């Protein structure tokens, strides 16, 4: 009787003594889980960005690496601050003085915007067809969309040279069938860039579109028809608005990387086309001007922050709607 009583009194006490520690432990684990993505961002995004930003503020030098050091403590603390004073926005001023950069940014934004619209036009029917296909063959169709990823991006873009060049597959086919009498000049033009971007980024458009179209209840379309809405009108009033989260996600997933695209304009656009990714490459490797190319990169990032934030917002809204 008494032992039972003591057991009863001691066990809560033991619990009380143990539980704060245990609680602290589990709180730490919980905290750790949240910390991981932040650490990832810190080490793989924020710190590299700060370094790039710092380089963009320094000046070129004939050295290894080819810019005045950013963090050089050889001169002691005062030497470090003296060097900090040498940092300046000269590189940014330079970007505004040479029209080349401005043109490259604007052209990149325009090319990315046009390619995004083209990708949407090509991708929407594909996604729609997939979403309306019998449920049994949908996984296969999905697989087919993802399949090109199994081949290197670079090789796939290279392959387009073979297709688009004056004596390439496309021209041979068109000449042989008599559609044209002169080979079309597509390679090394903006058209080739559009083709390359639409082709390469199509899956990024199709997948989010598919996922929002597939979720849609088909009885909504029937309801619209039932209420007197012809099929085309039902598409614009019901299907399209409901797929908007997918449209926005797809467009941003295409637009954001397309702005900074380097491989496609370099391989398919030739030397005549101007895009910021290529300019950055030239600045970095041909001119070995790391500070200016860093400034180019920083501005590019700032330009893309707006659409990225729009994307985040759209995602958040879509999540709230789906609740």
């Amino acid at each position, binding site marked *: 009787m008494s032992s039972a009583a003591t057991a009863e009194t001691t066990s809560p006490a033991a619990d009380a003594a143990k539980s704060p520690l245990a609680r602290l432990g589990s709180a730490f684990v919980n905290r750790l889980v949240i910390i991981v993505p932040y650490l990832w961002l810190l080490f793989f995004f924020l710190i590299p960005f700060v370094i790039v930003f710092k380089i963009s503020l320094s000046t070129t030098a004939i050295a290894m690496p080819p810019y005045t050091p950013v963090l050089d403590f050889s001169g002691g603390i005062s030497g470090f601050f003296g060097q900090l004073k040498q940092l300046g926005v000269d590189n940014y001023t330079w970007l505004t003085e040479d029209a080349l950069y401005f043109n490259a940014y604007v052209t990149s934004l325009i090319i990315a915007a046009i390619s995004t619209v083209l990708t949407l036009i090509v991708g929407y029917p594909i996604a729609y067809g997939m979403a309306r296909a019998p449920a049994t063959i949908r996984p296969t169709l999905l697989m087919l969309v993802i399949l090109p990823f199994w081949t290197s991006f670079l090789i796939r873009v290279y392959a387009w040279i073979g297709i688009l060049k004056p004596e390439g597959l496309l021209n041979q086919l068109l000449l042989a069938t008599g559609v044209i009498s002169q080979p079309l000049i597509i390679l090394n033009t903006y058209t080739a860039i559009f083709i390359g971007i639409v082709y390469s980024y199509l899956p990024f458009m199709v997948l989010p579109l598919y996922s929002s179209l597939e979720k849609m209840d088909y009885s*909504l379309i*029937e*309801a*619209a*028809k*039932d*209420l*007197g809405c012809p099929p085309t009108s039902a598409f614009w009033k019901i299907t399209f608005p409901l797929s908007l989260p997918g449209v926005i996600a797809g467009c941003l997933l295409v637009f954001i990387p397309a702005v900074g695209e380097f491989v496609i304009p370099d391989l398919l656009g030739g030397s005549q086309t101007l895009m910021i990714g290529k300019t950055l490459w030239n600045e970095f490797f041909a001119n070995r001007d790391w500070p200016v190319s860093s400034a180019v990169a920083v501005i590019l990032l700032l330009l893309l922050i707006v659409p990225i934030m729009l994307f985040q917002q759209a995602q958040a809204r879509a999540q709230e*709607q789906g*609740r």
Partner: protein
Amino acid sequence: MKSLGSIRRDFAPWNDPNAKPYIQFDNVTKKFGDFIAVNNLSLTIFEREFFALLGASGCGKSTLLRMLAGFEEPTAGRILLDGQDLRGIPPYRRPVNMMFQSYALFPHMTVENNIAFGLKQEGMPKPDIEKRVAEMLKLVKLEQFAKRKPHQLSGGQRQRVALARSVAKRPKVLLLDEPLGALDKKLREETQFELMDLQQELGLTFVVVTHDQEEAMTMADRIAIMDKGEVMQVATPAEVYEAPTSRFVAHFVGNVNMFEGKVAERAANTTRITGATGAQIVVENGGNTAAGADIVFAIRPEKIKVSSKKPADAVNALEGEVYDVAYLGDMTVYHIRLDDGQMVRASAMNASRVSEDPLTWNDRAWVSFRPDAGVVLAR
């Protein structure tokens, strides 16, 4: 005046040979590949009727409704609405509206815009649309929810929006596909009466598809009981329950006891049946069965009286033993095993709080019923 069931129906165009049918299914067949969803079915529905299609899932009732709405075209046969053949008319040009089982509310539109959707399609002037929407919101008591989106509403509220949207255009016929299926029991019962009131108020023809017999019995003027793409019986709820024309219908609606047997003797008014195990039953409504025919005698549990002694005046009385008793409050259900082995289910309303003749498990008991209590069906 005597009638089947406890309701006197004054609205009965189906008994009037001069009444003009409003919706007509003429030998309609619908096949999906090899599967026959609707098999050579003919059916007539009258104006202002509340008509229910009742059946288990896969019996073709929804297909029938979808053909009326225009989402499916019949493989053979024709459907007439107010004399007009509906073949080839797309759903968006049919003067019928449907309330979907999933409600199919447009998630990106407010309650108001959902209700106004059909009216806008019609090209109705804006002030008229606003007036009609306000009217509809009042009708379904959702005035203060006009600006909400569907996902901000409860299930019952969504159901009412769907209803308002489907009647906003004043369709000739309102089709309801399991309209109350997603509601909980209590709300469902309330809504059944609301739907009936609404139908009266608007004076529309309602065709409702349901698998819930109680729902069909409560709301409908007539019920079509369907099985495997065919109509088994079309009748008022009372007729379906009290005078089923087949074993299937008797079984499908409510509980029933079946006695298999033979017609032993036919007289002008009475038929004597010999049960398979020798029980003698005398019935008044023998149908058109001839002497010697194999039949089934079907009788509802509440028509059977259970007592501990043989009632003196009973025409039909069979002896057995109480196998199970369940006290449900408003009534008591007995399972009696007759001496010939047949199980009989009987239920008694507990009209008084005190029972004169309480029974318990394994008591000897008599079951008795009047000669007009059951029906004779072909085997």
